[in-house]
């Protein structure tokens, strides 16, 4: 592991140099929240943020991904849209990198999704520790408060400097090209440990059980009255899934130009919380109620994704808790309550 340090002023100059030569995306303040967006000047970058509205996964699995273009003149001619613009993302928080690892398992598992893969290969990741967690986050108790492997560079705000961990060759190259950083020693690394340790006590929400036990409490909780109690309030708006960094479901649609000569097939984010998500052509809906859909979503997060892809489908970011207007979407509430119900029988 290689560690470097750089003053914040120097870092800003480095970001400026990156912007000159690359597509750089970073966290911008967008009142009342923050959002990942293309940076045009280094001073737009805001690294002491609490949460972004959407996760940076939107760069790898965009809300709308063109799959192919075609001509309608009778013959199929599919122009490839499998491609990606190289770029650099600055400011990913640990929980979002955990979520990206889940997307890797989904889209680069048995089947390689070329659209995702293309983006993943050419977009570099510079993350940063989340030392002042958002009030809705429960990442600490989900084991996602610190970054997994898989970043190119990782920053820790140590006051007037950033400590930088180099995570890959691509990261090394970025340092060589853009960062005027000097070597860091054991003192800084120890300081990072301390800062990280201290951040854990700042989380307001936490899961009462080990995350490994979530599938177990779900196994016993299928018939809990909680599902109905929460689910009947759901108005199927899908907000809880649109903001979720681990939600991967999509619809596939076609559009045609007005001249009906050519068109495009694309995939677009979909939500298992929408009422017709599981409706077939005959009209049969296999998840007809808000209760069915809320339960499915939380089983998917807490059990199915783990079984299928080896990672929990919730990284504890808290976005869904905040997004739900009727206050029923919270995984930490549901899992804690089921754990309590399991204990008390």
């Amino acid at each position, binding site marked *: 592991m290689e560690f470097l340090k750089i003053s914040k002023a120097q870092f800003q100059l480095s970001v400026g140099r990156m912007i000159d030569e690359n597509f750089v995306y970073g966290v911008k303040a967008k009142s009342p929240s923050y959002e990942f967006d293309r940076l045009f000047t280094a001073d737009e970058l805001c690294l002491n943020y609490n949460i972004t509205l959407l996760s940076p996964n939107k760069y790898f699995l965009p809300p709308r991904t063109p799959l192919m273009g*075609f001509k309608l003149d009778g013959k199929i001619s*599919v122009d490839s849209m499998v491609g*990606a613009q190289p770029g650099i993302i600055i400011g990913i928080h640990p929980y979002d990198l955990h979520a990206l690892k889940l997307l890797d398992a989904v889209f680069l598992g048995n*089947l390689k999704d*070329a659209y995702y893969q293309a983006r993943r290969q050419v977009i570099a990741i510079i993350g940063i520790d989340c030392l002042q967690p958002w009030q809705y986050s429960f990442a600490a108790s989900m084991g996602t408060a610190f970054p997994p492997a898989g970043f190119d560079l990782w920053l820790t705000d140590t006051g007037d400097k950033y400590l930088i961990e180099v995570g890959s060759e691509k990261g090394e190259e970025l340092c060589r090209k853009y960062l005027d950083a000097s070597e860091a020693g054991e003192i800084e690394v120890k300081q990072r440990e301390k800062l990280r340790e201290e951040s854990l006590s700042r989380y307001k929400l936490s899961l009462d059980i080990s995350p490994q036990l979530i599938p177990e409490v779900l196994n016993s909780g299928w018939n809990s009255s909680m599902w109905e109690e929460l689910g009947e309030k759901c108005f199927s708006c899908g907000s809880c899934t649109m903001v979720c960094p681990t939600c991967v479901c*999509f619809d*596939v649609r076609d559009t045609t130009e007005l001249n009906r000569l050519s*068109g495009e097939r694309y995939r677009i984010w979909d939500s298992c919380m929408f009422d017709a998500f599981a409706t077939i*052509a005959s009209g049969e809906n296999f998840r007809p109620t808000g209760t069915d859909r809320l339960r499915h979503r939380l*089983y998917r997060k807490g059990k199915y994704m783990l079984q299928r892809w080896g990672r929990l489908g919730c990284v504890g970011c808290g976005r869904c808790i905040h997004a739900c207007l009727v206050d029923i979407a919270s995984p930490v509430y549901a899992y804690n309550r089921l754990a309590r119900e399991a204990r008390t029988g």
Partner: protein
Amino acid sequence: MINKSNSESLYFPRPTKLIDVTALSEREILFRLRLEDGNALYHIPGQFVEVSILGTGEAPISIASSPTQGDAFELAIRAVGNVTQALHRLQPGDTIGIRGPFGNGFPVSELKDRDLLFIAGGIGFFPLRSMIQYVLDMRPLFGKIILLYGCRQPAEQLFHQELKEWRERDDVLIMDTVDRCPPETEWEGNVGVITTLFPGINILPARTTALVAGPPVMYRYVVAECLKKGIAKERIILSLERRMKCGIGLCGHCQIDNAYVCLDGPVFNYAKLEQLKEVEL
């Protein structure tokens, strides 16, 4: 921009020519197709394809013919919405797109030497047809064959010619029924829902595997009858329909609990289905 080739896209539909178009009824058409690259589809009975009309969309459709029937294959399609209606407007010689085959298909090797009880409700006949054709083409490999085929009314019964040929064979028993028979309609078969055929069949439960496809409401009653006949849960095999958007285990639409119908199905045995909480049978 860094680009890759078409073939790397899992969504790339293979150009496929319609070589024959036969109306089965007012709502259903049988299409005979061949991949333009000359290859066979290399499918297993019970698998499905995603049929693509550029500019309109895709629909999952069961492969209605057996791989034993040659390189061309058949799809039987009921017009219900955008894609299926657009398909109904096509002519022989037109080109569509095909992705697949997808899904697990029927467990063909497990079915060897077994007595088979096919139970088809309405267009549930389509996915079963590939297996029935396979069995008839490879007849010595299988035991006794019974087909129960139920429709709502006589006009909805499809594949008359084929049924007639099968009826003439002495190595397969066909029993059909309609839920109701409007006055003045010609009908020689049974009247009543498909479960009313069960008392009339004679099977050896230990030797028999049931293969079931039909509308969702049918499954509960048919499974109950099969169990009553003494067929083991593992030997009751059902082909399911769910909403599908990708066919490759990514879009999430077809999920039942953690089972992806497009990957782990569409064929499931009842012992497995019984464990899924979202299935109420």
